[in-house]
């Protein structure tokens, strides 16, 4: 719950972390690696320097899941997707979005409680349902985006942007209606 700035404290907390926390920290690394591997598939390109930088950030997030570095990791991954990823609305995009969400989820759960804390099954089940909700919303947006792209609208950036913002607002509204604690 607090960020220790000294290296000894960080190492102590890694050493004292529970198996569950270690799995969650490893989840951040594995998710990052999978996403990095997904970027160059198909039309994407591989950027070794950028990929290495992202991996270093992922290691930092795994060591300090409750720190600000998590923002940098997600931004770096999204930036890498923009720079080197395929500009297509295929299944890989859905997998990439799910991996990004999984990395965020792993970092969130790893940061709950002090080192050595193990989350109960009830809470893990609750978060499982929440992850499914996030995934469902992502699939909905992905389908909507594919539908919009199939309409082959004239190249009007403003119109497309406004439409997507509206869609996002709709997803947000649905989330507010259905995302209640304990469900």
């Amino acid at each position, binding site marked *: 719950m607090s960020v220790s700035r000294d290296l000894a404290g960080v190492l102590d907390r890694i050493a004292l972390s529970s198996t569950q926390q270690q799995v969650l920290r490893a989840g951040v690394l594995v998710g990052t690696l999978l996403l990095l591997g997904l970027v160059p598939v198909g039309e994407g390109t591989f950027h070794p320097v950028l990929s290495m930088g992202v991996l270093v950030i992922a290691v930092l997030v795994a060591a300090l899941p409750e720190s*600000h570095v998590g923002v940098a990791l997600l931004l770096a991954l999204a930036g890498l997707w923009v720079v080197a990823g395929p500009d297509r609305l295929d299944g890989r*995009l859905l997998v990439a979005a799910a991996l990004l969400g999984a990395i965020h989820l792993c970092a969130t759960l790893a940061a709950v409680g002090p080192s050595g804390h193990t989350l109960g099954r009830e809470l893990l089940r609750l978060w499982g349902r929440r992850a499914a909700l996030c995934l469902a919303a992502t699939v909905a947006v992905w389908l909507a*985006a594919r539908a919009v792209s199939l309409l082959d609208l004239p190249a009007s*950036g403003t119109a497309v*942007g406004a439409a997507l913002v509206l869609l996002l607002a709709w997803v947000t509204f649905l989330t507010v209606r259905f995302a209640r604690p304990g469900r």
Partner: protein
Amino acid sequence: MTGGWQPTMALLRAALVSALLAVVAVLVGRIDLLVLATPLVVHAVAAVVRRPSTPPATGSSLGLTALREGEGTQVRVRLTDAAEVEHAVVQLNRHRWTALRPANGVVGCTPARRQPTLELCVAVASLRWGRRPVGDGLVGGVSSWAGYQWGPVRLPTRTVTTLPLPGRFDSRAPAPHPIGLVGTNPARRPGEGSEFASIRPWHPGDRLRRVQWRVSLRTRELHVTSTVAEEDASVLLLVDSGTEVGVSEGVHGAASTLDTAVRAAGAVAEHYLTRGDRVGLRVLGATRRNAVSTSSGRRHLRVVLDTLASVVPGESRHVDPGRLRFRISAGTVVIVLSPLLSDTAVATTTTLAARGLDVVVVDTLPEDLRVGDDPRLLLAWRMRTLERDEVVTRVRRAGIPVVPWRGPGTLDQILVRLARRRAAPVGVRR
């Protein structure tokens, strides 16, 4: 450390990254970035919608404030106004000679429904006599979707008084000089009791049930069975806390000299007090609460054990034996529990013996004491042991018996010898 709700890093991350991705998506015209941002948007919005308003209030308490060594109790951390807490965690600090369950002292709680009150319990055991700090640590919680965190809030330190677990002790030897009115120790004078003394001719005032009919028929004269009066004894325990040698590993491990002294004192006190005798206590080397006046009863046993639990090793080494005042009545047996490594203890012991009191020294230095592997340390300890042997010899020459602590029967032979010495005729120079 804070007492209010603060957004978590997860919420900030989700909100910031999703907002940036949405803006870039609109500006650059990359619709795929909106898909990437969707899980983060869902998380951020859900967490913000369920934003908690009232921070919980904390309170902690101990199940029991007094324990025996090795016994455990629970530290209860209670959160009120906790309806918006989805998951609460308490982490207690670990201290020497205390054990926590779970071992890292971290316990979490996820209420199934919205509950206004949450209680988190951590089992704690005290492994050594004394006053042990427990219950200090941190407590915190997160709201729904881990969007906001409360705490960590510091928990206050509580003190659990750990009474020494009395070592096994039993003594069948009577007190050498009972001086009270009623008790279980056979006195030197005849009176009402259960110990047979003699069969003597009947005197007016003798009870009818004391008549010894067989002897009366044979001698044609009434005879009665006389008994020895039973009186209580007075015992003063003198615990030397000025020096502690050895490493204490708690109730389940190796014992230091002070561990042995305190546990032996507790055992002796319990033995005599349950027999109805009177016991007093004096702690040599303690600056406060260093004396318990001589008294009897179960409640007094608790006072004695409580005082023993407050002994601090080496608190005050500079005690002037000449200034010590012992309010001891004649006939009191003084039991000194000491490793005989401090001059104060030796001087006090010889002073009390010179006053004509029955003094017994219980040597609390274990025979298999481990002082380390350093050869210089071993040599120094060897020299110190030789000095101590000389002191022990000097004390014995002064007529003070020195016995090692062996538990049951430790004092039997000594007390019998002291009783014989008391009963023996004293030579008077004419």
